């Protein structure tokens, strides 16, 4: 049997706890990215030998084609993260190695499948992608308008996992 004083204590504690019950949150905060990104890494052949090394442009521009938006004005960064369009199964990006030379620009074309993905009630839905192929403009002999030598799809699953290089871009040695 519990004493009257303790019963009073129980009442006070219960009232405090009921007050706390009123502080439940409506929606949990979203703690994960709701847009997944495709990571591209640029490489080039070393000046001597056959080694492949990181390549970075001094003042590159990167953005979706047919749009005025510029995503990167990157300096000396060999890795870029871009998003794919959730509105279509293909999208195009441009890579301009030097912001001062607007005519010298490469195009990357991504072909992929979209998958609607539920994240959580806190974050809602997003799209994951499976990239089937990537095409790009390629620097040919005596070409001065393009910089890319070749591209290689390293991992086509774009699903928000970190530390994944999806696309490897090999820059021409003379660019």
């Amino acid at each position, binding site marked *: 049997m519990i004493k009257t004083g303790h019963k009073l204590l129980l009442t006070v504690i219960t009232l405090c706890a009921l007050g706390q019950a*009123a502080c439940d949150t409506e929606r949990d905060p979203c703690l994960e990215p709701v847009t997944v990104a495709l990571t591209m890494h640029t490489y080039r052949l070393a000046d001597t030998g056959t080694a492949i090394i990181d390549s970075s442009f001094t003042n590159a521009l990167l953005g979706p084609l047919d749009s005025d938006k510029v*995503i990167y004005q990157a300096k000396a960064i060999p890795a870029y993260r871009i998003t794919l369009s959730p*509105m279509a199964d293909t999208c195009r990006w441009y890579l301009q190695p030097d912001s001062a030379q607007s005519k010298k620009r490469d195009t990357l074309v991504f072909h992929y499948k979209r998958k609607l993905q539920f994240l959580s009630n806190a974050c809602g839905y997003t799209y994951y992608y499976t990239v089937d192929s990537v095409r790009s403009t390629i620097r040919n002999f005596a070409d001065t308008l393009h910089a890319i030598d070749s591209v290689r799809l390293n991992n086509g699953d774009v699903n928000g996992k970190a530390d994944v290089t999806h696309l490897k871009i090999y820059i021409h040695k003379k660019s």
Partner: protein
Amino acid sequence: MLLRAVKIWSLLCLFLAGAVVARAQADTTEPEQDAKKVYTLPHQLRFGIDISRPITNIFLKTRQSYEFQVDYAIKNEVYLVAETGWGNANIDYPDLRYKSSNPFLRVGVDKTMLTRIAASDWDMLFIGMRYGFAPIKRSDATYTTTDSLWGNTSGTIQGKNLTAHWLEVTAGVRVEMFKDFFLGWNIHGRFLLNQKPFRELPPSFIAGYGKGDKNTIFDYNFYVSYALRWGRKK
């Protein structure tokens, strides 16, 4: 995260407070030979209502629920328990909209940890187990994905009927504040048994369980109860 930590800490404090009360009770008990005394008890059927739900219903616009409890004292300070209720969720976020509703039933047992000191002593500090299930109806859901670069997309996910099954462990306190009237709380740890159907747009709130997108839930109830007593057990 901080709010959750505060809540867990508060619940622990509440549980400890219960233990302190129980300890105080233990201090007042008679010597051991009296504690083993067997009492002839009346039948007791107790009805409770969770008074915390109407309060949270006032403050939370996205969900409503009501919970009730009935327990019956059987032998060896063990109680058969059934808990029932219903609730609904009305999710109206900018990027996600749907409704869900469900009744629920939890059944199980509670075991009192206090030693009875008189036939009229029905105060209890207890632990218990439950099995719970809830048939859930979720409406069509409309979603919007936001993308500042390419533009937003939206669509509809078809509605679905789901059934949740879970097990839970519980602990709590009931104190007879006035004759036949009890006040007390339960804390619950709930473990969803069938997780697979809840991976694709689980209801934000399942009455009787909690957040539908969590496989493990900690929850609480605050009950006001009334006991009916009659006859004598043989």
